[in-house]
């Protein structure tokens, strides 16, 4: 039983371990998405990042948001992205900046953003409860918040009007091209 005595500590370590795995893979995949020479590799790096972020959401108890992340970003946006690349598959697309001056600006802008984020994150105090609360189902609360006039009803409806306008615009563009031909 002596070996079993160490087990409680080990089982408390599992969430931390999982967090570092998810966060680490997310960072590595995000870097791959930024620097991969082939655009398809970059897209798949982005997919891995989306997954890992979804896993982090799930670890925070936000089950609905995690799955929405997968279904919207991986199943929708990423698939359309790669679909677009597939249509141009035969042409070699080289990513990355070519000219030296652009490179300097890119490094400057990236460095500045990093600095701002670092200051912002360092200056924020995150509330960390001693013992994490038991995760509760979030779906019903999200649904109620969307339909609550004092909650998110107006932003939600505005977003849906925006999406509808985009949809009508896309349908209009597709229609025009066909009648011209």
């Amino acid at each position: 039983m002596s070996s079993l005595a160490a087990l409680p500590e080990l089982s408390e370590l599992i969430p931390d371990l999982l967090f570092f795995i998810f966060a680490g893979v997310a960072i590595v995949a995000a870097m791959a998405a930024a620097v991969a020479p082939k655009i398809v590799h970059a897209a798949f790096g982005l997919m891995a990042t989306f997954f890992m972020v979804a896993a982090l959401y799930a670890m925070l108890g936000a089950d609905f948001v995690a799955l929405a992340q997968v279904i919207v970003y991986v199943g929708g946006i990423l698939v359309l992205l790669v679909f677009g690349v597939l249509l141009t598959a035969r042409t070699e697309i080289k990513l990355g900046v070519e000219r030296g001056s652009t490179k300097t600006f890119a490094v400057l802008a990236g460095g500045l953003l990093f600095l701002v984020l670092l200051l912002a994150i360092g200056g924020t105090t995150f509330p960390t409860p001693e013992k994490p609360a038991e995760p509760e189902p979030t779906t019903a609360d999200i649904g109620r918040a969307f339909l609550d006039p004092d909650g998110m009803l107006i932003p939600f409806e505005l977003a849906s009007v925006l999406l509808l306008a985009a949809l009508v615009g896309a349908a209009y563009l597709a229609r025009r091209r066909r009648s011209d031909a």
Partner: protein
Amino acid sequence: MQSLLDQLIESTSWLQGLPVGLVYAAGMVIACNLVLVYASALAGETVWLERRVSGRMQARIGPNRVGPQGLLQFLADGLKLLGKEDIVPKTADKPIFLIAPIIVFVGAFAAFAVVPFGHYLVAADMNVGIFLVLSLTSIEVVGIIMAGWASNSKWAILGAMREVAQMVSYELPLGLAALSIVVLAGTMNLSEIVYQQEGWFWNWYVFRGPFAFVAFFAFFVSALAALKRAPFDLPEAESELVAGFHTEYTGFRFAVFFLAEYAAMILFSMVTAILFLGGWSPGFDIDLSGPLSRWIGALILFGKTIALLFVMIWVRWTLPRFRIDRVMYLCYKVLLPVSVVCVVGMAIQVLLAMTVFGGRANAFGTWLMGGG
């Protein structure tokens, strides 16, 4: 699952010495592996079922040599495929080519974790069950594009592009048809959805009003298309594209694609049975929550799954393939409006049941509003 594990911990003394979290974690891993084995074996047998049924439909016998009635055929085929050379085409994108089958496999099998086979017989009893099934099956598409693109072959890339166009389109009516049941049930938890359908068969969601009835067909047809089953099998149309996205795959990687395809068929049959046909409920009023009788429930769900699988196979060997524009027409101009009407109609039905028909106060109101 958690309640099952709690019972187990209470009755077993040496488990009580261990930290609860560890027992839960171990129990989850074991349960998920059991589900994986069950799903893989069932997928293998579905291949056999398909070959036997198609044989019968074409007035021939089909595989009947390995094991009783040829039931062990999939083991022989699997062993044969294991022994084949794992070829990677010279111009293929090697890492993506090698990862693609794994992603397809994960997309097809992971969602079995939330499928309730009987009372408490579910690996992960999640509140977002049906949403998880839909989002994980959308991962499969990514794997298929990866396979098609990495193969660097025109057959593969054409198959992958058709698959993407078809899957992305049919996800909409599929999700909306499922959503109309979520409106009726008031939950996305698959176990909860089955509890609400227990009792006599008119409690099954397919029979609760016209919208649920139409949603059932919309869901099943969309599932057929999302599974790229005939008559929607354009992504791998043998007569045009050799084998579509998996043309360049050999040996075990091909077997993984093949298995994942049949696993996804089983998954959607099970989910259809759970959402619309009462899951493990046999259709008459009987308590199946006991430690032994819940396995009878699992057997009943198995029977319903096989029945729906048979319908899928039957359709495949009966109907010719659609033309791609007819596939898209059916999705956007038929199934999508129909499933939108189902969602809105279902919302009105639940609202009417609450207000006009007295809600939970009388039996008809309760029947009409489900758990919503």
